[in-house]
């Protein structure tokens, strides 16, 4: 194996260079000695013999050089020389080295930090086998944008008809009340059909999974524990299978433990229970409120599955009136989970890439100047025989060394940056797996690639230009103002203008995001989030009367607590991203026919809700104690509903039939103010408020308005609930302000990050302007001296130099504003309350940048005006 031997030899020469050299020396000396001996034997004197032998061999060093060349390692040696030369050169110009490495460290560090997030959120696949075949299915309602949850009937049909999937599972996540040593606790629980674990391709860590039998109607008191819950609640007991988990309704038998790291959607469940579907009456467990996950068969593409499901959907639409107009939405699971984070990460990557480009442009300018200064030295090398390619290679190696050092520093910055950013975002970016976001080997590779690319980008052009030297330059003659110089100056000016434009674009973007954030903070939600505390109450499978009376008793107790102004419940809190919809008919419309119902959003609330949330009642009254089960049905609608369905007229007193409320005619007794239920920026939708006392639900959230600090009352409220029913579990308490704060995390993060990077970009661009003008001043010191000596005033000099900087700034500003205008569509999705073309922001950004840039240009201009003519003229 020749190449193995050759490789070994080369490695040896590389790593044991010293020994190889010594051997070469010894070998040639041996030959020299024998040659000398021969001459002596022929009769010469020893000294003459040696001299003659040396002459014949032609000099040991030349022969050694030839041998070294024959070993084919010249390239390596030269590279090693270049690298050490580059390092020496950097050490000799510490100022240049610091500025260059700092710019690179900032640029590369920023890019690596953002890439760490991109890698963790977008690129890293879900940690399940064959995760690219995991899909999520949802229903697409007719006419509306977006998707809704799945109906169990449709799930059964899909499971029966679709051929594209290896397995399909239906999932819902109502909490579970468990009873432990310290009392009742509410835990996160997933109800699923038996195929769930097959869909995710994982097996249990202990025990077994559900059988298909267990997802048929019947009593199946079994549970699979989540891995984390098993550790926490049972201490990781290896004999946990077969033990019982005490819940409010009795006890469940533990049949297994889920593997660690299994997440259904974005949540890691504490427990899994079977979801029994009656094939004869699937709607008995609920309507469109389930999640469906599936695994594609091997070889079936996502598009093929989509096409098949479209056919299935139209067949179902013909068969079932409730499916009329509905389509099926199929998406890769990972893509679906990260759909919110993706545009933002893309934007951030673009921003940091721009910062890096600006840093590179600066470096290119610095290197060009440096190249001109080193002309003499390069000319000497050229006259000693270095080819142009060799010179270019040397300069490129210098760029690579610089960018490697900058890249290493950037990695350190990125490490800290990632830690800081993870704390800042704290879960605002959805990550599919539990693994933390940190620097991994992929990020290291990314840094390496970026460092190399930047070195080539900013190093190549200056290297090419600098290597264009003529040997006579080595004679020390200062070539001043030649055509080549002017060309380089023009190029540098063009580069500075470009980086100014880029910095302005970033600044405009930052301004828009900052204004968006300030708008979001002040948005009118329709309710008062201050001084309210909330807790989740899962009422469980009690009969309806029991649920009504439980809530009544709890509300009585809590209202009586000191410091409580109002208490109530609602099924799904605003700003938690969940809501229900229902069908309804206006009085007089043909009822009972599901295909002719209008749909509306609905909220299930108890009495006192509007007072507790601070929602104004615009007409009529709120729910009170008179409204009971068995009494006349009452509902309250919001203003949007009243306007839409009773335009111009009075909604009060009219009656509607709500599908969810047992389809009994209910009277509208009040009109409430609109609330932004689905998010800070969501438009209020027409909503019907149903009364819990008449239509009890299972899931509720207690809302308590307090006088003063809300979280201080949490313990008292919890105690009150415990007094009413010790087995009723309560979830962790959270104030409405915290919910609002959660929704503000993302916009705050975008605004802060982009502003931060824009600031760096502005500083870098200002440094670029400063560098260029300062360089011009240094080159033209002689000329300025002449001008001053000939009578020009210092002010004239200042104005001329400053004018150059101002001109570049102005051109860059105009270009930047135009570019920002052209790119305004890019940032439009992130904005709220401010248009992408908002003139105030543009003006402000331009003004800020102009101030910084003109200051940067003024410093060297001032220096120019202080030039002492005599000193300037003295030196050539």
């Amino acid at each position: 194996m020749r190449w193995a031997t050759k490789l070994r030899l080369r490695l040896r020469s590389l790593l044991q260079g010293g020994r190889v050299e010594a051997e070469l020396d010894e070998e040639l000396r041996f030959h020299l000695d024998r040659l000398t001996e021969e001459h002596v034997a022929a009769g010469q004197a020893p000294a003459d013999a040696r001299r003659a032998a040396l002459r014949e061999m032609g000099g040991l060093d030349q022969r050694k050089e030839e041998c070294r060349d024959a070993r084919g390692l010249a390239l390596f040696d030269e590279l090693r020389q270049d690298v050490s030369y580059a390092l020496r050169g950097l050490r000799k110009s510490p100022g240049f080295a610091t500025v260059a490495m700092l710019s690179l460290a900032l640029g590369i560090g920023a890019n690596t930090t953002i890439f760490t997030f991109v890698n963790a959120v977008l690129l890293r696949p879900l940690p399940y086998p064959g995760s690219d075949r995991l899909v999520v299915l949802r229903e697409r309602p007719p006419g509306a944008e977006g998707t809704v949850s799945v109906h169990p009937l449709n799930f059964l049909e899909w499971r029966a008809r679709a051929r594209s999937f290896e397995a399909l599972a239906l999932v819902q996540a109502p909490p579970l009340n468990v009873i432990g040593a310290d009392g009742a606790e509410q835990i996160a629980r997933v109800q699923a059909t038996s195929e769930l674990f097959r869909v995710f391709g994982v097996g249990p860590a202990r025990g077994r999974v559900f059988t298909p039998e267990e997802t048929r109607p019947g009593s199946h008191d079994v549970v699979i524990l989540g891995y984390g819950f098993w550790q926490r609640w049972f201490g990781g007991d290896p004999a946990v299978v077969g033990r019982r988990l005490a819940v409010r309704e009795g006890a469940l038998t533990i049949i297994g433990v889920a593997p660690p790291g299994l997440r259904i959607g974005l949540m890691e469940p504490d427990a899994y229970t079977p979801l029994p579907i009656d094939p004869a009456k699937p709607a008995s467990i609920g309507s469109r409120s389930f999640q469906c996950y599936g695994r594609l068969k091997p070889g079936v593409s996502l598009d093929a599955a989509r096409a098949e499901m479209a056919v299935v959907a139209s067949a179902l639409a013909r068969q079932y009136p409730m499916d009329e107009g509905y389509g099926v939405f199929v998406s890769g699971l990972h893509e679906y989970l990260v759909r919110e984070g993706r545009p933002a990460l893309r934007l951030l990557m673009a921003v940091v890439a721009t910062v890096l480009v600006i840093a590179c442009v600066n470096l290119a300018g610095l290197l060009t100047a440096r190249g001109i200064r080193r002309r003499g030295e390069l000319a000497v090398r050229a006259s000693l025989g270095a080819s142009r390619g060799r010179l270019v290679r040397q300069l490129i190696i210098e760029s690579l060394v610089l960018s490697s050092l900058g890249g290493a520093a950037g990695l350190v910055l990125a490490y800290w940056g990632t830690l800081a950013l993870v704390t800042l975002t704290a879960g605002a970016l959805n990550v599919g797996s539990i693994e933390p976001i940190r620097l991994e080997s992929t990020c290291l590779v990314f840094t390496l690639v970026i460092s190399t690319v930047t070195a080539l980008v900013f190093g190549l052009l200056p290297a090419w230009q600098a290597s264009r030297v003529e040997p006579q330059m080595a004679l020390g003659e200062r070539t001043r103002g030649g055509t080549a110089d002017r060309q380089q100056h023009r190029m540098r000016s063009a580069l500075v203008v470009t980086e100014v434009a880029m910095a302005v674009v970033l600044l405009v973007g930052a301004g828009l995001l900052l204004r968006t954030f300030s708008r979001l903070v002040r948005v009118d939600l329709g309710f008062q989030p201050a001084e309210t505390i909330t807790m989740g109450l899962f009422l469980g499978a009690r009969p309806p009367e029991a649920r009504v009376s439980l809530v009544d008793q709890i509300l009585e107790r809590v209202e009586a607590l000191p410091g409580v102004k109002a208490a109530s419940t609602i099924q799904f809190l605003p700003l938690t991203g969940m809501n229900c919809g229902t069908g309804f008919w206006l009085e007089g419309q043909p009822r009972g026919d599901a295909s002719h119902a209008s749909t509306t959003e609905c909220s299930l609330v108890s009495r006192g809700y509007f007072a507790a949330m601070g929602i104004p009642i615009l007409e009529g009254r709120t729910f009170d104690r008179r409204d009971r089960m068995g009494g006349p049905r009452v509902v309250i609608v919001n203003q949007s509903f009243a306007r839409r369905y009773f335009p111009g007229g009075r909604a009060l007193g009219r009656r509607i039939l709500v599908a969810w409320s047992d389809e009994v005619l209910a009277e509208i007794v009040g009109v409430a103010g609109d609330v932004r239920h689905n998010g800070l920026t969501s438009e209020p939708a027409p909503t019907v408020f149903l009364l819990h006392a008449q239509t009890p639900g299972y899931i509720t959230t207690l809302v308590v308005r307090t006088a003063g600090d809300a979280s201080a009352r949490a313990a008292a409220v919890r105690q009150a609930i415990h007094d009413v029913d010790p087995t009723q579990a309560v979830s962790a308490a959270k104030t409405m302000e915290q919910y609002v704060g959660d929704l503000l995390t993302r916009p705050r993060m975008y605004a802060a990050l982009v502003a931060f990077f824009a600031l760096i970009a502005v500083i870098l661009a200002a440094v670029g302007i400063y560098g260029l003008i300062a360089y011009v001043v240094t080159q033209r010191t002689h000329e300025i001296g002449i001008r001053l000596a000939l009578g020009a005033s210092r002010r004239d000099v200042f104005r001329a130099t400053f004018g150059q900087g101002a001109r570049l700034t102005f051109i860059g500003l105009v270009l930047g504003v135009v570019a920002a205008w052209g790119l305004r569509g890019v940032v439009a999705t992130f904005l709220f309350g401010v248009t992408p073309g908002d003139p105030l922001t543009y003006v402000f950004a331009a003004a800020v940048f102009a101030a910084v840039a003109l200051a940067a240009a003024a410093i060297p201009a001032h220096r120019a005006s202080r030039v002492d003519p005599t000193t300037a003229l003295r030196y050539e």
Partner: protein
Amino acid sequence: MSKPTDLVQGTLDLLILRVIALEPMHGWAVAQRIRQMSNDELRVGQGSLYPALHRLEQQGWIEAEWGESENNRRAKFYSLTRAGRKALEKESAQWERLSAAISLVVRRA
């Protein structure tokens, strides 16, 4: 794998390989043997021997080992590898063909 060499260099390689094929020897001995076998006609230039040896070693046709020479001094002994032996056969055959062809032309003329 071998770089295009001019006729002289190729011939030197052939001579070295041929000589080393007989027994392992150090550079000095190679030069002496070539001189001897050619009846003193061919004297290897002192400058070209060692670069050629190192190049052949780099190509994997000969391998080196340090040993003791006739006068009890350390010397680097080269021997033929299996690849080298095959190369030698090929080069020899080529040389035979080439020299026969040249002779034909020269004699004819």
